[in-house]
């Protein structure tokens, strides 16, 4: 290495970067930009929630028609839980966004806190939804057992699968959160 510090600086600054198309933001676009008060849902999430609502409504209606009160109560609880989760998802995070005019050190910490908040929020929603689903499965199993006096193996398998699903989902969230923290410290 023969390059001294001034040479490094000269070399770094010697090149004129190519400007991309329209690099300067237009004033009218900047001034008209407004941020909605809720988070827009992606197409996949919308479809998922639509199917969930439809399925829940059908079960609710069927339970009510057959006079199966445990099922009726269970599905009502799930419907309320799904609705609450959607409301939480759509609600915008009101915490102040990291201020980019802060020092890099402070901004990095604020960014890390923001990601932590985001992951905690998603984990809460995820656990709420799947917890409600497991509750429904357990209540249905209990209701069937009370009604018929026998326990079907299939009724046990579903709650167990649901719990495994929750564990897998939680692992996924923790891994994603850990990957973000790691990236943040590297960049």
């Amino acid at each position: 290495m023969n390059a001294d510090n001034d040479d490094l600086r000269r070399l770094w600054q010697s090149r004129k970067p190519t400007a991309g198309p329209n690099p300067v933001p237009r004033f009218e676009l900047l001034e008209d930009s407004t941020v909605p008060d809720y988070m827009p849902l992606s197409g996949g999430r919308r479809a998922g929630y639509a199917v969930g609502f439809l399925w829940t409504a059908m079960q609710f209606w069927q339970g009510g028609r057959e006079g199966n009160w445990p099922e009726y109560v269970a599905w009502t609880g799930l419907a309320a839980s799904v609705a609450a989760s959607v409301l939480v998802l759509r609600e915008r995070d009101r915490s102040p966004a990291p201020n980019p005019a802060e020092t890099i050190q402070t901004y990095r910490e604020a960014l890390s806190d923001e990601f932590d908040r985001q992951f905690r929020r998603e984990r809460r929603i995820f656990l709420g939804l799947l917890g409600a689903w497991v509750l429904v499965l357990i209540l249905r199993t209990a209701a069937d057992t009370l009604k018929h006096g026998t326990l079907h193996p299939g009724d046990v398998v579903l709650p167990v699968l649901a719990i495994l699903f929750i564990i897998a989902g939680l692992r996924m969230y923790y891994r994603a959160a850990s990957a973000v923290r790691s990236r943040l410290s590297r960049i």
Partner: protein
Amino acid sequence: MSSGSDADLRQAFERILSQYELPPRRLTFSYAAEQADRDDIHQEILTALWTALPRFRGDSSERTWVYRIAHNIAISLSVRRHRWTRGRETVTPDLPCADSLNPEAESLEEERHRILVEAVRRISGPDKQIVMLYLEGLSKREIADVVGLSEGAVATRLSRVRTTLAESIGKGQVKYERR
């Protein structure tokens, strides 16, 4: 800047854009490999500068304020859009020379620059920002002000990272003649 009218703000923004046109563009090279991604980062930096301008009260110098915003936005976007740097070891800067050189010298200069950019990209954490600010010509005091570390800490890190940088460029086997 907080009490300025719209016209004053526009004027100030345009002056900042012309005065600091190149540094934000240069720093994007160390955060993204593709031109389109670098343009995205640059656009976001300019938007953040415009948004933050009314709140700029001169607590720090304008220069350090611009560099803080530029680096913070680049860091933020790099974390959110990891694909920018993942799995790409080679940067293709596509940079024309600022000064006209003969073709051979230009080619050598381009290769040296490419190696320097790649070496900076490989540095991780706060050291990366410190070395980029140093290469932009900021003093240790100014770097400390941008990064949020003490001047002594900046000096220590800079000394270490310059050695790393020198080793990286040395491994690039590019003969470097001092001018």
